[in-house]
C-alpha cells in the first residue's frame, strides 16, 4: 500500500503521549484489550467467555489445563483415585487468598458444595453433579465420593466455574459478582465498568516468583478493528482478536506477533428438533450434506478455523473429518433425503443470528446461500445480542447459529449438550441410543475403552443431526514483540500471562 504515510502520522501522534517520561520502571505494566465487558466476576456463577478471561487472573482451580491441554496441578499438588468412586486431592500448603487468609480444604469443600447446591444455579453444577459427598480429613486433603466413576471429573474441576473461592468472603458478600476472593496471581485494584479493570500483582502468590508483571490493565474496546489500532499505536500491549479480517491485518504488521492455536469451541448450526420440519432427522441430515463447511471457514473465518465433527478437531479424541459422513458435500444426496422426508421442492425456514459477538452472521449468510441449492429458502432473523440470548434460552428458534464452548474431554461437552437431560440441550433432542453412548463414554476411566465409544457417538450425532457441526475457530492473541513468555492455550485461557515478562 502506497498511501501509508498518513497512517504512520496517526500512529506517531497517538503514540507520543504514551511515551513514558522516565518515571515508571519499564516492563511492569501490561495493557490488554478485549471487546466485551463482563457482567460479573463470581467464578461459580458466570457463563460468558469474557468473564472467564478475567477469572483466569484472579482465581485458581484444583487442577488446570496446560498449553498442550493436559491436566496439571493448580491448587492441588497431587491426586489419586483409590477406587473408581473416590478421588483424593492433596492441596498445596501455605496458599493464601487475596485477603491474607489461608486456603484450606474447608474452602474447597465450601466451593464444591456451593456449586452443587441447585439454589446457586451454577453452570458448573452439571460438570460435577456426580459428587455425592465432599470430605475433609484434614486441612490439606479433600476426598470426593462419587455416585459413579466419571472420566471427565478432572476436566470439570479444571473449568473456571470450579474456581476455589474463599468461604468467609462469600458469607460476607453474598456473591462475588463485584468482589474478588481468590488465590490468583493478580488482585483486583480498580474497576471502571465498560472502561477498564486494573489488576495488581499478588505478592503472596503460591507459584514463587510469579507473576512477573506488576500491573495488568484490561481495557474494554468494543470493536475489533479498534483493538488492532490500539496494539499498533502501542496503547495496548496485547489484544484478543477473533475476527478473521482483523487477523489478516494484524499478520501484515511486521512488529506484531500473532499467536494462534486451534481452539476447542465449536461453531454449530442448531435445530429445534421439536419444530416441523426439523422433527424429522432426514431433513436435518439433508442439511448436513448440503452445507460446504470448508467454504464457511474460508469466507466467514478467513480460513482461521478447522472443520470439525462433534468433538473439537483440535483434541485427540476427534475422528479425522475425512472419515466422517457428510463432510464432503453432496447436494444430490441432500435432495434425495429431503424428498424422502416429503420435501422434494424444499421449504422456507428462518435462521436466528446476531451481528455481534458470537452471533455468526457471516456463517448464516453462507448457509443461507448454500441451502438454495436444495430448494430451501432461509430468511435471517438478525437480532441484537440480548434478544439472541433470550431466544436461545427460550428455545425460540427453528434454526440458529451458535458458538458452543467446547472442552478437551469429550464427555463434558457432549453430555451436557446432547443427552436428553443435558443442561444445554437447546435442541430439545431426545435419542435413546445416543443417551446410552453418552452414559457409557463417561463411566469408563480408561482412554482405550472410551475411544471406540466416542468414535461411534460422533457418527451417530452427525447422522441424527440435532445440530450440524461446522468448525472450531482458532484462538488468536495479538501481542507486541516485547511481551515474552506467554503461552496460548486452545481453551483461550489467559492464566499463562503469569509467566509473561516485558522485555523492551
Amino acid at each position, binding site marked *: 500500500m502506497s498511501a501509508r504515510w498518513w497512517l504512520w502520522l496517526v500512529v506517531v501522534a497517538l503514540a507520543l503521549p504514551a511515551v513514558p517520561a522516565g518515571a515508571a520502571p519499564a516492563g511492569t505494566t501490561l495493557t490488554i484489550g478485549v471487546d466485551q465487558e463482563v457482567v460479573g466476576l463470581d467464578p461459580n456463577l458466570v457463563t460468558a467467555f469474557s468473564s472467564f478471561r478475567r477469572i483466569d487472573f484472579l482465581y485458581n482451580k484444583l487442577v488446570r489445563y496446560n498449553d498442550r491441554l493436559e491436566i496439571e496441578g493448580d491448587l492441588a499438588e497431587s491426586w489419586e483415585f483409590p477406587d473408581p468412586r473416590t478421588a483424593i486431592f492433596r492441596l498445596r500448603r501455605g496458599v493464601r487468598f487475596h485477603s491474607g487468609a489461608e486456603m484450606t480444604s474447608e474452602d474447597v469443600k465450601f466451593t464444591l458444595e456451593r456449586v452443587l447446591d441447585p439454589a446457586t444455579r451454577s453452570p458448573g453444577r452439571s460438570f460435577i453433579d456426580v459428587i455425592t459427598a465432599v470430605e475433609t480429613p484434614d486441612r490439606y486433603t479433600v476426598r470426593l465420593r462419587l455416585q459413579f466413576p466419571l472420566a471427565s471429573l478432572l476436566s470439570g474441576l479444571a473449568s473456571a466455574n470450579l474456581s476455589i473461592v474463599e468461604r468467609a468472603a462469600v458469607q460476607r458478600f453474598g456473591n462475588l459478582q463485584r468482589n474478588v476472593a481468590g488465590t490468583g496471581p493478580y488482585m483486583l485494584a480498580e474497576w471502571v465498568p465498560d472502561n477498564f479493570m486494573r489488576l495488581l500483582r499478588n505478592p503472596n502468590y503460591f507459584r514463587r516468583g510469579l507473576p512477573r508483571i506488576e500491573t495488568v490493565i484490561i481495557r474494554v474496546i468494543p470493536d*475489533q*478493528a479498534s483493538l488492532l489500532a490500539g496494539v499498533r499505536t502501542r496503547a495496548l500491549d496485547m489484544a484478543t482478536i477473533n*475476527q478473521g*479480517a*482483523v487477523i*489478516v*491485518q494484524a499478520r501484515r504488521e511486521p512488529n506484531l506477533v500473532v499467536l494462534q492455536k486451534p481452539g476447542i469451541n465449536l461453531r454449530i448450526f442448531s435445530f429445534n428438533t421439536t419444530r416441523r420440519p426439523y422433527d424429522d432427522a432426514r431433513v436435518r441430515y439433508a442439511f448436513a450434506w448440503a452445507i460446504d463447511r470448508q*467454504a464457511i471457514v*474460508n*469466507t*466467514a473465518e*478467513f480460513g482461521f478455523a478447522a472443520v470439525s465433527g462433534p468433538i473439537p478437531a483440535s483434541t485427540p479424541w476427534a475422528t479425522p473429518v475425512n472419515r466422517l459422513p457428510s463432510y464432503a458435500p453432496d447436494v444430490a444426496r441432500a435432495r434425495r433425503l429431503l424428498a424422502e422426508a416429503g420435501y422434494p421442492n424444499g421449504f422456507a425456514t428462518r435462521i436466528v443470528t446476531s*451481528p455481534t459477538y458470537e452471533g455468526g*452472521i*457471516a456463517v*448464516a*449468510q*453462507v448457509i*443461507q*446461500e448454500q441451502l*438454495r441449492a436444495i430448494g430451501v429458502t432461509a*430468511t*435471517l432473523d*438478525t437480532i*441484537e445480542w440480548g434478544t439472541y440470548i433470550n431466544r436461545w434460552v427460550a428455545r425460540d428458534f427453528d434454526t440458529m447459529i451458535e458458538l458452543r464452548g467446547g472442552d478437551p474431554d469429550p464427555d463434558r461437552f457432549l453430555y451436557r449438550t446432547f443427552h436428553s437431560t443435558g443442561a444445554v440441550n437447546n435442541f430439545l433432542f431426545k435419542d435413546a441410543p445416543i443417551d446410552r453412548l453418552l452414559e457409557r463414554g463417561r463411566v469408563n476411566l480408561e482412554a482405550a475403552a472410551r475411544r471406540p465409544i466416542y468414535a461411534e457417538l460422533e457418527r451417530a450425532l452427525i447422522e441424527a443431526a440435532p445440530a450440524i457441526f461446522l468448525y472450531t475457530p482458532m484462538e488468536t492473541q495479538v501481542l507486541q514483540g516485547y511481551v515474552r513468555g506467554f503461552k496460548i492455550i486452545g481453551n483461550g485461557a489467559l492464566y499463562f500471562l503469569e509467566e509473561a515478562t516485558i522485555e523492551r
Partner: protein
Amino acid sequence: MRNRVAPIGLAIIAASVLVALVAPAVVPHDIRAMSPGDALAPPGGRYPFGTDEFGRDVFSRVVVGSRISLVVAFLSVAVAVALGTTIGLAAGYYGGWWDAVSMRAMDIVFAFPAILLAIAIMAVLGTSLFNLVIAIGVVYTPQFARVSRAAALAVRSLEFVDAARALGLGNARIVWRHIIPNVLAPVTVQISLSLSLAILSESALSFLGLGTQPPTPSWGNMLSEGRQFLEIAPWNAVFPGLAIMVVVLGFNLLGDGLRDLLDPRLR
C-alpha cells in the same frame, strides 16, 4: 440561467432511477452467488468494483442495491406525504382544537431524534421492508404536516378563498381547488429534501442491522459489512458509500433548485 444545479440533480436522480429499473437485467453477476475462491478480490477484471468477503460482485450489489434504497425512499416519503399533508391541511384549514391537538402530536414525534424513533418503531414492528417504509414514513410525517399547515394557514384567509366560500363552494372543493395548489410548491421542495434524508435513514437502519436483511443488498448494509474490511478491502465500503453520497447529493441539488424556483421571495 438562475438554476444551474437543479438540472444536475435531476439528471443524477433520473440516472439512478433508470439504473434501479434495469438493474437485474444488466448486472454482470448473480448478487447472491458466492465464490469463496474470489473473496475480497480488488476492483478490476471480472469485478469492476471488486468482491466482498463471500466473493460476491460488489458492482452488481451496488447496482441492485439502488432498488432497495430508492424504493424505500420513495415509498416512505409517499407515506410521509400522505399522512403529513392530510394532517397539516386539516390543521391549517380548519384550525381550532384539531389544529392544536394534531400539531402537538406532531411536536411529540418531532421531538425524537429521527434515527432513534425509527429504531424504536423497527424494534416494535420487526424487521421487514414494509415495516422499514412505515418507520421512515412516520419519522418524516411531521415535516410535511408543518409545511402544509403553514401554507394552508397563509392561503385560507385570502380573498379568493373568501370569494369561493361566498359563491357557496363546500370545504372539500375549496381545499381541492384552492388550497392544495398553493400547498404543492413547498411540499414539492420538502419531498425532494426528504427523499435524501430517507435514503440516509434506510442506510443508517440497515447499517445497524435493522433495515434490509441479507442477502438482499442495500447500500446501508453493504457499508456496514464493508466497514469490517475497510483496511484490507476498502472497495467494499467505498462504493456503496459513494452511491449514497451521489444520490443524496442529487436530491439535495434538486431540492435547492426547486426551492429557488418556487419561492416567490427569491424570484
